[in-house]
């Protein structure tokens, strides 16, 4: 039920690009991306609500392909500060009428100088 992320881990040099993929066997109604730096709380990066939507800030952007039930996070010209674990999340309805976020398996990204 959890979205599956790939790759599990990636090592880059500063200035290189990376793509992190998030795939779900169930329909994706929204996709959230979070980053967790070592020893810190996960922090919200962005949300995509509609199929075909693309978003970005700074040199991090994401796309959402609703039909393929997948999302991708693009990190361009990576910086040391991009190091951390990236999670995708998706919303699911609950029996109480609210919704919960189910998160993916995570991708560890390390940027080397």
């Amino acid at each position, binding site marked *: 039920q*959890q979205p599956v992320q790939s790759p599990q881990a990636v090592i880059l040099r500063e200035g290189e690009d990376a793509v992190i993929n998030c795939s779900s066997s169930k329909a994706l109604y929204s996709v959230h991306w979070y980053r967790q730096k070592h*020893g810190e*709380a996960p922090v919200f990066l962005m*949300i995509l609500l509609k199929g075909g939507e693309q978003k970005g800030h700074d040199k991090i952007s994401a796309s959402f392909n609703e039909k393929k039930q997948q999302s991708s996070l693009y990190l361009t010209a990576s910086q040391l500060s991009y190091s951390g674990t990236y999670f995708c999340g998706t919303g699911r309805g609950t029996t109480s009428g*609210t919704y919960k976020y189910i*998160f993916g398996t*995570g991708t560890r990204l390390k940027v080397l100088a």
Partner: protein
Amino acid sequence: DVKVTQSSRYLVKRTGEKVFLECVQDMDHENMFWYRQDPGLGLRLIYFSYDVKMKEKGDIPEGYSVSREKKERFSLILESASTNQTSMYLCASRRTSGRIGDTQYFGPGTRLTVL
């Protein structure tokens, strides 16, 4: 800024002990969540609460219970800790607007080791 705090950053307990993990948020959020984080498995939802005294099971509730007596506080209880509950535990909170896009705010986590 939303602040989610967890009572301990590190905790070491013995098998069979009853363990309480506490989480407090200061933004009057209705929804609160407990996740566990394990390498290769990501974040998995244990329980969540959508209002005071209201709770719902997540994906891996076995061996855990929760309590929410006040809006700002959500406790995770391990009735009889076992070694396979050694993990990082993350609390999160979120306001309820009815829209699926609300941001979830996380605490820094509690690393629990059960010996």
